[in-house]
């Protein structure tokens, strides 16, 4: 707890620096990642992040020490080569995209490992720092590194914010952008540059192997909460900053722990919560919405059955006969009857059920929609009368009063449906 207070009150200026760095970095990679997620190129980020390893080693060899400028440049160059190769291979070979990405990822990483082991055997004492690139160590970032990485992150954020319109076009409608004269190729190219930059600075904190999570997970988690790009970007950035700071905190408390894996665990936790509990598209919400809808349709089917009986001259139906109409659905039928009774649509008299006055008009509404739709399909769509029932069976639950009025007007307030049954209307 003391650690917690110490960490989050930022008494130690170096902690403040690290948190600031990880915040900028998280926002930058979440922004870039969200765009690449929407562009369905999420795994390209994974390939790039594995592919920067040889560049890092090369930068180290050239500088002879862990110089951030050399390392960033090296990483940038090898990430660029990997990105270029992946588009080139896609155009010039018949390999599928995932095979290309997996090939580039593993070959570059293999070369990186060769260089890393060769470096380790060279006995340079500075080499220990290189290993942090594989799993990340945010706490180990020095102030000098931070200026460079934070600056680059800020650059990414600013570019993406200023050219939001252009990148939005790239993601959602490239052809349209082309046709109104935006240079889509250069926009794609500069986005790739930004993506490589984001990877290059991200690996400092999270490591080569897990960088993909920082690009992919915030965007896909945020996608569950909103449909608007602006909100999406802000949420993704927020998720990634929260996880970044939490991960840094863990490696502050437990120094032997690398930061990257913990950031990923927190991110995935947020994503899981989003998948399950977000309103509208979360799994739980969709499950209950479906349940509710099924209950509603069953209720309406019950009303319809009672109304049909009324048309045949039977004022009430025995409850057992209703159960037999829907074999194997007795519990649903029971709860449907209970709901209808609560709404005063039906009255139960001993073992007999009859429609109440409001029940009759509600049942008429549904039957009317059903028959209107059948007539519409038959007359306007030229569908044979024996083929229209199934569609009407679904649409009767969905047609809104506005659509109903429109149908009535189009069909000129008809009296009979294609099966020569009366279309019921409330007499005023």
């Amino acid at each position, binding site marked *: 707890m003391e650690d917690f207070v110490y960490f989050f009150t930022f008494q130690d200026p170096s902690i403040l620096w690290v948190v600031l760095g990880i915040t900028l970095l998280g926002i930058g990679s979440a922004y870039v990642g969200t765009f690449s*997620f929407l562009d*369905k*190129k*999420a*795994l390209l*980020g*994974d390939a790039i992040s594995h592919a920067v390893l040889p560049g890092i080693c090369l930068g180290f060899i050239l500088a002879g020490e862990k110089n951030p400028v050399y390392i960033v440049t090296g990483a940038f160059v090898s990430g660029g080569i990997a990105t270029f190769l992946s588009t080139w*291979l896609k155009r*010039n*070979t*018949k*390999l*599928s995209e*995932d*095979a*290309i*990405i*997996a*090939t580039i*990822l*593993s*070959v*570059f*990483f*293999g*070369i*990186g*490992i*060769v*260089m*890393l*082991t*060769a470096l380790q*055997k060279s006995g340079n004492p500075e080499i220990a720092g290189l*290993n942090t690139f*594989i*799993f990340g160590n945010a706490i180990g970032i020095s102030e000098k590194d931070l200026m460079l990485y934070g600056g680059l992150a800020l650059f990414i954020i600013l570019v993406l914010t200023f050219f939001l319109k252009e990148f939005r076009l790239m993601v959602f409608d490239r052809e349209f952008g082309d046709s109104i004269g935006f240079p889509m190729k250069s926009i794609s190219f500069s986005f790739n540059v930004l993506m490589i930059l984001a990877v290059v600075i991200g690996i400092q904190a999270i490591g080569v*192997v*897990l960088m*993909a*999570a920082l*690009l*992919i*997970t915030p*965007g*896909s988690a945020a996608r569950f909460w909103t449909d608007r790009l602006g909100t999406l970007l802000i949420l993704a950035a927020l998720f990634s900053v929260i996880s970044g700071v939490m991960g840094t905190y863990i490696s502050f408390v437990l120094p*032997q*722990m*690398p930061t*990257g*894996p*913990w950031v*990923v*665990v927190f991110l*995935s936790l947020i*994503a899981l919560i989003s*998948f*399950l509990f977000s309103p509208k*598209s979360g*799994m739980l919400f969709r499950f209950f919405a479906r349940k509710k809808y099924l209950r509603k349709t069953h209720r309406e089917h019950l009303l319809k059955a009672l109304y049909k009986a009324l048309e045949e001259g039977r004022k009430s139906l025995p409850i057992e006969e209703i159960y037999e109409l829907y074999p194997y659905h007795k519990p649903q039928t029971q709860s449907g009857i209970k709901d209808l009774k609560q709404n005063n649509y039906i009255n139960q008299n001993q073992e007999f059920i009859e429609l109440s006055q409001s029940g009759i008009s509600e049942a008429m509404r549904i039957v009317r929609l059903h028959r209107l739709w059948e007539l519409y399909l038959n007359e306007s769509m030229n569908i044979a009368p024996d083929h229209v029932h199934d569609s009407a069976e679904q649409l009767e639950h969905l047609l809104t009063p506005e659509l109903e009025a429109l149908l009535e007007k189009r069909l000129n307030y008809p009296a009979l449906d294609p099966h020569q049954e009366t279309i019921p209307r409330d007499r005023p």
Partner: protein
Amino acid sequence: MTFDSNAFLIIFTGSLIAISCGMLGVFLMLRKMSMTGDAISHAVLPGIVIGFFVSGSQRSLEVILGAGLLGILATLMIDWLRKKARVQLDASIGITFTLLFAIGIILINLFAYKVDLDQECVLYGEIAYLPIDLWITKSGLNLGPRITWLAGLNFFFVSGFIYLLFKELTLTSFDESFGSVIGIPSKGINLALMSMVSYTTVSSFESVGAILVVALLVVPPATAFLWTKSLIPLLKVTVILGVLISFFGYYLAYWLDSSIAGMMVTVAGLFFGASVLLNRKRNSSKSGTSPLPQSFGI
């Protein structure tokens, strides 16, 4: 040049691993699941660590069981995210493997003082120590390097698996719905393939590392695919590539004094690059320049 038994053992074991991975990789590639293979090879890590922790040794059944379970779990999780939570495929792969791999790394660090398993070993393995890691029976009989036996067993299982289920695998790779129609349990076949991939990853991870297994799963089949399109030659070329990769990989690593596994992958990459360039020439000389797709004239 004299016959070096150590070199022979390493190349032999490397070939066995490369061939097992490559043959499975051909089917992964045909199913457009190369990245799933990548995801699985990352995702088995927590299984390996837990199995290691429970049993206390790398050579136990628990490790293989744990990894196999995690491999299947990863496949199911990707499927669940895609179908139930409606996340797009590439993102569900990315989320799954990063999460499982992260848990694996955390577990390694958590148990670091209890298990003799470090990040480097997981990342790039050490096939070079193979000749000194011998399998000696209780009666003191020296049966040769343990990892070679493991790789051999794995090779045996993989080739048996492919031989027995060849028809089913082929059919479900090319036409899943037709397979389902004539009564092949395509989901079961898919899960079986994924468990073979995870099992192969485990038995290879000590020698080539969990991540570089991916290269052996993906690169030889992709290279072979540039040369041929039919399945049997595809498998044959992949096998030949596997042997060549481990041969040149070993000698180059020996010459440069670096990681053998990493060098094997580098050699695989070189083969791939050469194949791309050669095929480009071959194709363009055969058919001339390909006509540009016609745009709509207005």
